[in-house]
Each structure stands twice: as structure tokens, then as C-alpha cells.
């Protein structure tokens, strides 16, 4: 698996919120502080490439498959919480 898609959010003991945060910190290589305020293209690493790593991380962490429309809509940490809800994942 390419480096960009490697992450460790599947740990069973984590809450959904912890897993969700982990996806951002690992896929985008950002610290956990301030992660709630993250927006697409708001940091250098959340470019279109980082976006695909983030999507892969979320899909693996929650065992879901995101539709293209939702991938496009995933514009912020906050927005992602609403999108996860559509897949039955409560953050």
C-alpha cells in the first residue's frame, strides 16, 4: 500500500471520534490540535492528493465506501461528520 494511504485507525478500542480525528492527523500529517477547524485546501497537505488519502483512511476506518458526490462534498472536518452520518457512522 502506498505511504499516502497507510494509516492505523482500525484500533478496536478507539471511539468513533478518536478514529475520525486519527484519519485526519495521519492522512494529512497534521497535529490533533486544531483539527476540528480544518478545511479543504486550508493546509498544504489537504490538497487533492491528501484528499484521496483522507477518503481512503475514512473508508478503511469505518468500513464504508464513499460515493463520489460525498467525496466532493467533504470540504471540512465538520462537514465530514455529517457525511459519515449518512453511512451510519456517528462521530
Amino acid at each position, binding site marked *: 500500500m502506498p505511504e499516502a*494511504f497507510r494509516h492505523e485507525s482500525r484500533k478496536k478500542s478507539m471511539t468513533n471520534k478518536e478514529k475520525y480525528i486519527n484519519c485526519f492527523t495521519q492522512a494529512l500529517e497534521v497535529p490533533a490540535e486544531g483539527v476540528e477547524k480544518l478545511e479543504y485546501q486550508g493546509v498544504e497537505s489537504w490538497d*487533492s492528493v491528501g484528499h484521496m488519502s483522507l*477518503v481512503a483512511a475514512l473508508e478503511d476506518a469505518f468500513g464504508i*465506501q464513499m*460515493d463520489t458526490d460525498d467525496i466532493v462534498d467533504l470540504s471540512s472536518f465538520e462537514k465530514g461528520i455529517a457525511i459519515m452520518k449518512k453511512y451510519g457512522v456517528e462521530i
Partner: protein
Amino acid sequence: MGILKGRKALITGCNRGLGRRMLELFASEGADIVACSRHRDDDYRSDMESVVGKHGVRIFQIFMDLADAASVKEALGEIGRDHKDVSVLVNNAGIAFNASFFMTPPSKLRELFEVDFFAQVEIMQSVARLMMRQGRGSIINIASAGAVEGGPGYLAYGSAKAALIYATKVLAREAGRYGVRANALAPGLADTAMGHVKPEAEIGKVIERTALGRMADPSEIARCALFLASDASSFVTGQVLLADGGRQAW
């Protein structure tokens, strides 16, 4: 020879024509196949079983109608769930339509784009993401020589296939860094049902313009797809492989 051993190849339009020939060739080279078609029937099922028996590979049957967005979505869900390891995609299924520019109704234009372009892009978007996560993959979009040369009578078909070529190049650029290749294969006239859609006189004219002076046998196109699918083409991406018997060699 087994040059696709250990690979899982998804091919659309597997039940007949070029797709059926690719399925057999890829299976003979050791690939497991995710075989997509739109109709379930006993003949098809037993045909697939015969390929399994002959080549000792696995075939997973998936049904999707490219003209039906819900059916495509459902099939892609199944692929994403059960076939995360797919590393070859051949977007082969397609429809043709022959009418002059002024005799092409918008509804036909939409239908052709739905099947020959939109659905194919959706499949690419889903499957390329699976491949990017594996760090490898080869996507082959079956375009048409007609899309490259342009010509009267093919507004809908030619435009949709030309769009498919463009999408192939964009994908090649964006997915290349993840080890995923994307190429278009553009056949000239091939001896399948679609190859005989034109009136005989028209077919004659095309053959006249073809350096080799004949139609392609489907196996000749399938071998080009095999080249693009396999590591024999590991440094080839974003290309259009014209397998047209020298129609554009002038």
C-alpha cells in the same frame, strides 16, 4: 504463459464480442475475472463455468446495466466490497449509433454519453481508487479509431468515445503517482456484432481505407488489451493504442 497470474481483472461486456474474447485470453493468462454483463441467463452462466473449467481461474459474475445509474451504483458497491484487489479494469461494454450530425436526436446523444462515457467514468472513479490503495493497476478504456479520426455519421458515438480518451489522459496524469496506469485502446473495424452494424457498402469503404485491407479478428484486439493490462506495458500510460489495421497510416 500466465502473464496475468495473481491478477484480478474486471471486464465489462463479457458475454459477447470483444469482451468475451478478452475474458478468455486474460483467463488463459492466469487472471481471475470479475465478469460484468447486464443479463443473467443460463447460457451465460454455463459459458463462464466452461472458462473456469478450462483455465482453472475464478470468475465472479457481476450484473450492471450501464444505462441505469442505480444498477451501476449497486454493482460498484459490490465491487468495492468484494473485489478490493482488482488490478486490471477493461471498460469494454458500449453501444454504437450511426446517424448524420443533423439526424442525431438529443435523446440519442444523451443515451450514448450515458453508456459510453458517464458510466465508464463512474466505474473508473471507483475502481481507480481501489487500485491507488494497492499502489498498482491498469485501466484500459475501449475507445474507437473513429473517435481519433473524426468522420461523418458518428456525432454521438465518436464524441462519447473522444471524451473517453480525454478522461483516460486526465486519469493517467492524476493516478500515475500511485502506480495506476490508464490507456485507451482504439480498435478499427472488428468482426463482432458491432462491427457489422454499418451497411455492407459502408463496411467496404472502411476496409478500403484500412492498410491491411480487412477487419480485425476480435483476438487481435484482445491481445492489445492484454499488452496494456500486463507489465509488458509497465511504462505506458495516457496513450491511445490504435489497433486499426493502418486506417490512419496515411
